[in-house]
């Protein structure tokens, strides 16, 4: 299906084995992919350690910003935003450093 890019930044890449940019192809499924299901997928496939530092419940941990195509996800419906082809999803951790 779609090929979103996932970028953890600001220190979050430490949870992904230091890899900053992930180009992923999500497997096809009947329901359209939204951020909620993307997070579940990331937890299962990309997160290498300490999932509780990235995901809390069904959303990201407070303090982690999510940008879709360089726009705040709050403008797009947060978890309910439906992913399009070639979307770029960026996770910025504000918890690290200062």
């Amino acid at each position, binding site marked *: 299906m779609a090929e979103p890019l996932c970028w953890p930044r*600001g220190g979050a890449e*430490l*949870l992904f084995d230091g890899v900053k940019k992930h180009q992923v192809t999500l497997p096809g499924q009947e329901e359209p992919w939204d951020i909620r299901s993307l997070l579940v997928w990331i937890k299962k496939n990309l997160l290498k350690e300490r999932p509780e530092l990235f995901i809390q419940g069904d959303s990201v941990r407070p*303090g982690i910003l999510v940008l879709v195509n360089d*726009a*705040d996800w709050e*403008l797009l419906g947060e978890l309910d935003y439906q992913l399009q082809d070639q979307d770029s999803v960026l996770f910025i951790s*504000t918890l690290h*450093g*200062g």
Partner: protein
Amino acid sequence: MLCCRKLTPPGLLEWCSPSEQDVQGPQRLPLTPGDFCLWSHARLPLSDTEPAEARTGDQKCVKCKEGLPVVVIRAGDAFCRDCFKALYVHKFRAMLGKSRLIFPGEKVLLAWSGGPSSSSMVWQVLEGLSRDSAKRLRFVPGVVYIDEGAACGQSPEDRARTLAEVKLALQTTGFPWHAVALEEVFSLPPSALRCSAQEAAGTEGAYKAAVDSFLQQQHALGTNGVERQSQHCAQDPQSPTGPPTTAQTQALSRLFDSVKTLTAKEELLQTLRTHLILHVARNHGYSKVMTGDSCTRLAIKLMTSLALGRGAFLAWDTGFSDERHGDVVVVRPMREHTLKEVAFYNRLFAVPSICTPALDTKAPEKASIHRLMEAFILRLQAQFPSTVSTVYRTSEKLVKAPRAGCAAGPRCLLCMCTLDVDTADSATAFGAQTSHLPQMQTPVTQARAAAGPCCCAGMGGAPGCCKREDPRAQVMEQLCYGCRVNMKDLPSLELLPPYILSEAQLRSQRATAEQEIREYLLGDSEDEAGTGES
């Protein structure tokens, strides 16, 4: 009947002053359409149509009403890219401008940690200095970077790699820069802990006069002045002491490994870092230090300081300016920027930053008070977007008033705030705490204890005799409550850098000497002929 839709988290009501509470009342305050809710948390115009939380794709920027919004800040204000940049830059400049603390031509040291907030601050200064002459920032900056890899357990290869990246970044700023390793605290002089005489704060008139004369100078110099200034800025890098020795690195690692809790480690790291930055500032003639503490970080710091027993010093720890060190003033220009704004700005306008692992990287939520407070505030912020700004606004109201009936009293050895404990309190819990410590002394410290006179007479009857001979007690009684609580987690004080221990000993000896000669000092009402009677 309209109601304010924003809920206030329970417990935050107590933050507001009583008079505010009366004016604003409970959250379900009935208002008329078009009014702004008086609660500081909800600055939205109220309407009885759709709720404020609905987001649609055809939203427009709330400021220019035309651009496509990219970021939501505060509680629901969506800004487009250009308006966001304008707001961000304006906040920074207004913060500096309205304080009138930084005089034209003054040397200001920017404390850069590589993280997003301080990188953003350095970037703002860079941009601010390059504007056209009317609006240009007028001070002379330098940048300092503290390499804390030894305290955080980084390997030498990682440290070298980070340092190379850092040096490259510093060179591109064009400012004079200083990259200092934390190990240099072992070569600091005891004078680093002394508060130098405070310069008289400039009056309003003095500031205006300074600005006018500076502008006249610039005008007279014409374009030559501009070139000279940029030449002055691109100095060669300075690293007079070279890389730290292995012995120093090991000493630092030993010190941090011996601290029992992560909370105390973080506080110790902050203390040492502050001392080092001040030392660099004093050595190179900087009269101001700018740190990149953001609104979010300061809100977390305020709550953490309360939990650590530093409530008496909140105004200095979280205010815009911190003058406790006397000659060098610490300034926090990023105080009104939340971490979200900083992160968005850095992303949208490509501000470079370097991510280095810190003490609490990957630590679980309850590992330290700092982490716990951070999780608490951020989680609350996620549901109640006004949390951080409410805490921030409360911190603005804190006043730096001296304790009643107490002039310039003694200062804490480590944090240099005026002591908030009475030394005559030895009969209370503090006396009991510090007096049982002589039994924990190692043979080394006992051998090194200064052989002074027994000082029970002046100490108000504390159980442990000869307290002043014990180096640990010597240090502890010169600390404020917060620093004492932290030092309890450090079992052996000899691992501290020598400048702290020698300054503690010096002050203690001075206090003992003062105690001894007090009876021989003449009071105001005594006859001067009485000097012969001793």
